[in-house]
């Protein structure tokens, strides 16, 4: 079977000289199907089985459960806002289809734009398509609000890949985390689409006369309605019904930043926050699943546990200090509950651990992680406009990672120089120089 597939693929290989762009694209897909038949030249004769593709794919694998949950949660939040199927397992098919209809275009636009730019540069520079966007492309949909307009998404991805990565020389050369760069682009260029209360729930509109309404369901939903009706299941219907009274769609963080922890628990239970059936970016909400992903990355040694641990530590220290200060309601939120809200764990597991933009040295990683946690908590709690800090903290520390590394390396250089000096000093010849001393006999 393998040989037949190989033959079939080899037959459709475009000519490299005639159509280089097609060949680049072909090569990208071919190397995906088959590890190339390259052998070692000089240097080592055998190589570790791990390559960048395998490395990156394992991150994507760790994200799959988040995709599953995130998709379902888009639908779940939508229906909860409308007061329908409020139980988590009610209307499963509707929630799932609703989520898929939202997330698939986001996923496709992200990849078409991102990979398009990657392919173009690979063709321009004449090398194979690099794997960096595998992970970025899987992360970006998870950190966007479900209703993000697709053109904004496209522009932000293009900005991140073009300015953030290709301008610096491609995968492995970027200074800032690509996925976060695309999010921060939306955050600064189109803030109303990624902050506030209503953006985190899909398909909710503000009516002209005030109050929120569910959007009318389009033709795609009608298509599924036909199927569901045929199967005797509940259908989407026409839509346009009003949101339940008093429902704001505010995330726990948004509530906590204004009214403190007490107000949060009036709206959401801690169980809800833990399991993630709350509004938010698509993939950030389910803590247990993120922890599963993080453990997967730690066990497979793909992400660095030092960054994750020190980041938790840094955030906890700052949260404790803020607790002690306690000047505002938000500061008084018990420090451990800070981890229940927002995207801390997602940022810790998948964003801060990006090896390209993180510190490269072991001691540097401790410092880097700790400072992300520390700074991120400051941004989250003391920022009057926007109650979340990890995106900005990580990007901030991305910029400082090379500086941290510089000092770690300098310390290493000094330590080494000191050792050599100590040895040179203690260099008292423990026997007389043989050349002169022993001739007499």
């Amino acid at each position, binding site marked *: 079977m393998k040989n037949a597939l190989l033959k079939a693929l080899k037959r459709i290989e475009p000519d490299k000289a005639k159509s280089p762009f097609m060949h680049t694209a072909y090569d990208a897909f071919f190397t995906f199907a088959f590890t190339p038949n390259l052998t070692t030249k000089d240097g080592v004769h055998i190589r570790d089985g791990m390559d960048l593709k395998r490395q990156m794919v394992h991150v994507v694998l760790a994200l799959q459960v988040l995709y599953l949950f995130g998709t379902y949660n888009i639908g779940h939040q939508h229906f909860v806002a409308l007061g329908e199927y409020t139980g988590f397992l009610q209307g499963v098919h509707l929630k799932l289809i609703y989520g898929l209809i939202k997330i698939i275009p986001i996923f496709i636009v992200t990849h078409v734009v991102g990979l398009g730019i990657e392919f173009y540069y690979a063709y321009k520079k004449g090398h194979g398509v690099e794997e960096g966007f595998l992970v970025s492309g899987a992360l970006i949909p998870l950190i966007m609000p479900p209703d993000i307009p697709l053109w904004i998404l496209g522009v932000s991805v293009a900005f991140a890949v073009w300015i953030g990565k290709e301008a610096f020389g491609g995968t492995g050369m970027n200074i800032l985390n690509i996925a976060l760069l695309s999010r921060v682009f939306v955050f600064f260029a189109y803030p109303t689409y990624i902050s506030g209360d209503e953006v985190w729930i899909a398909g909710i509109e503000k009516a002209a006369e005030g109050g929120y309404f569910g959007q009318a369901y389009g033709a795609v939903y009608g298509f599924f309605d036909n199927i569901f009706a045929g199967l005797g299941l509940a259908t989407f219907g026409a839509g346009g019904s009003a949101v339940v009274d008093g429902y704001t769609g505010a995330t726990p963080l948004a509530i906590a930043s204004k009214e403190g922890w007490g107000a949060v628990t009036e709206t959401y239970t801690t169980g809800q926050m833990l399991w993630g059936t709350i509004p938010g970016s698509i993939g950030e909400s389910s803590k247990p699943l993120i922890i599963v992903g993080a453990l997967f990355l730690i066990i497979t040694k793909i992400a660095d546990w030092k960054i994750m641990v020190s980041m938790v530590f840094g955030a906890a220290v700052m949260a404790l200090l803020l607790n002690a200060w306690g000047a505002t309601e938000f500061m008084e939120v018990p420090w451990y509950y800070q981890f229940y809200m927002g995207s801390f764990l997602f940022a810790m597991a998948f964003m801060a651990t990006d090896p390209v933009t993180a510190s490269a040295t072991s001691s540097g990683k401790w410092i880097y992680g700790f400072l992300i946690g520390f700074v991120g908590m400051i941004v989250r709690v003391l920022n009057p406009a926007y109650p979340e800090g990890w995106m900005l903290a990580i990007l901030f520390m991305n910029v400082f990672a090379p500086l941290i590394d510089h000092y770690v390396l300098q310390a290493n250089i000094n330590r080494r120089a000191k050792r050599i000096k100590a040895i040179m000093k203690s260099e008292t010849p*423990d026997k007389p120089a043989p050349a002169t001393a022993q001739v007499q006999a």
Partner: protein
Amino acid sequence: MKQTVSKGILLILAMGAYTTSWAQAESGGNGFGSVLTYSLIAIAVLIFFFLIVQVSNNLLSIEAKQLGIDEEGGEVGPGNEGFLGRLFQPKRPAFLDESTPVTYLRRGHDIALEGEAALSIDESVQATTYAVQPPNFLGISPIPKMLVEEGSEVKAGDHLFFDKTRPEMKWVAPVSGEVIGIERGAKRAITAVTILADKEQQYRELSAFDLDNSSREQLVEYLLDAGAWTLLRQRPFNVVADYNEVPRDIFISSFDTAPLAPNLDFVVEGQEAAFQKGLDVLAKLTSGSVYLGLNANGETAPAKAFTEATGVKQRWFHGKHPAGNVGVQIHHTKPISLNAKVWTLGVQEVLTLGKIFTEQRFNAERIVAVTGAELKKPVYLKTKAGAKIADLLKDNLANDHVRYISGDVLSGKRKEQDSYLNYYDDQLTVVEEGDDYALFGWLLPSFNTPSISTTFPSALIPDMKFKAETNTHGERRAFVVTGNYESVLPMDLYPQELMKSILVGDFEKMEGLGLPELVEEDVALCEFVCVSKQPVQQILRQGLDTMREQA
């Protein structure tokens, strides 16, 4: 050290005092009292922990001084053996008594391959052709001056050629026979002088040398004439030793941890006297000491030749590959720099050196391990330095789509069937060429792929042996993953940053980050694990070459 500690404590106290006064000044506001409480608790915990670490560290170093590990004033096991590292020290080998210091190297990786040589010497296989290859010797001029021509008859130990820039440095024939070829490569550089060996070996008899009653200069002169100088290599740069220099120390590793490497305990069997003689000679050549690295791995003690060697300082090392590399051992014993030069030798070179004095002839005998899963019978062979590969593999190949490697699979050199083993190599490895496509290689859990990654199921099976093949398992990429190189190199340095500094040509950083301490074999494992498939050894050599030109 004490100063740093007291400074640290003072700083923390000052911070505490500052916080207190600040908190009192602001105490009108609510919550500042608890800032004070929290910070005081935090500081107390920190100081407590700091003191514990400090006290135990001091106790450990006092103990180390008593045991004599610390006599050079350096840290014990720098960087690698931290405070916590010592807590979880592996079990001390049973054959060592309590007072013997052992350096435990935590980082590293053993690649278990199929095709280990059985511990017996196959006397039936004899090579007929041998070669001395000038490119094996780094730091000499590329076109040495020939003293023989094609067709000349030579005895083992006769001079073949000398270095143009240093005429005293002479290379000698490993066997007696007829010079059948002087092969030339690019720019007419001599690549090999080949000799067809006689059935009956004849040796150039050397005059006896009185080791005890001669000066170092006389010894150097004697060794240069005997052709023994080429056995010595000098670090940094791994070049042929310079006879005008007196090395700070001489280092020998008595065990090899590379994949399928020859068992040197087996090799040295029956040659104890020659080995000890070699050590005695070396002791005269250095102003410092001769250090012998010993193997603290495994259940049984190393050969008596090593454990009972006299006139040397013994250092025990426990750990995975590259614990047996002399470079790693130097780093943990007495590190080198550009100005602090040391010499190194392999065990078989020491034997040849010793035999010059015990047998009065240049006996380049090598016991070579012929290894690899592609052989019918991996075994040890008794031959001479620079034997022809085809001769050594006679009727032993199970597969013909293979690669011949002089040395081990990590740092060995690629050879053809009709070429020769390199001068310093005592191992021939044959592995399968892996020029095949693997379907979904980036995803599927393949069993026959050696890796340090736990994404392969083989990580769950300890002691699993792999069938080596030469596929790269991926394409070359820019550096992405960090921390991998460090995880397999038990030295206090940052190999990936060093590689980057070489690539950008930053001399100061190269030297500072420890380039003089490394040679190719030390970073070979880094190249093996490299996810981006970078040619780490090649980059390192590039750095060493440019640095040598500058120096």
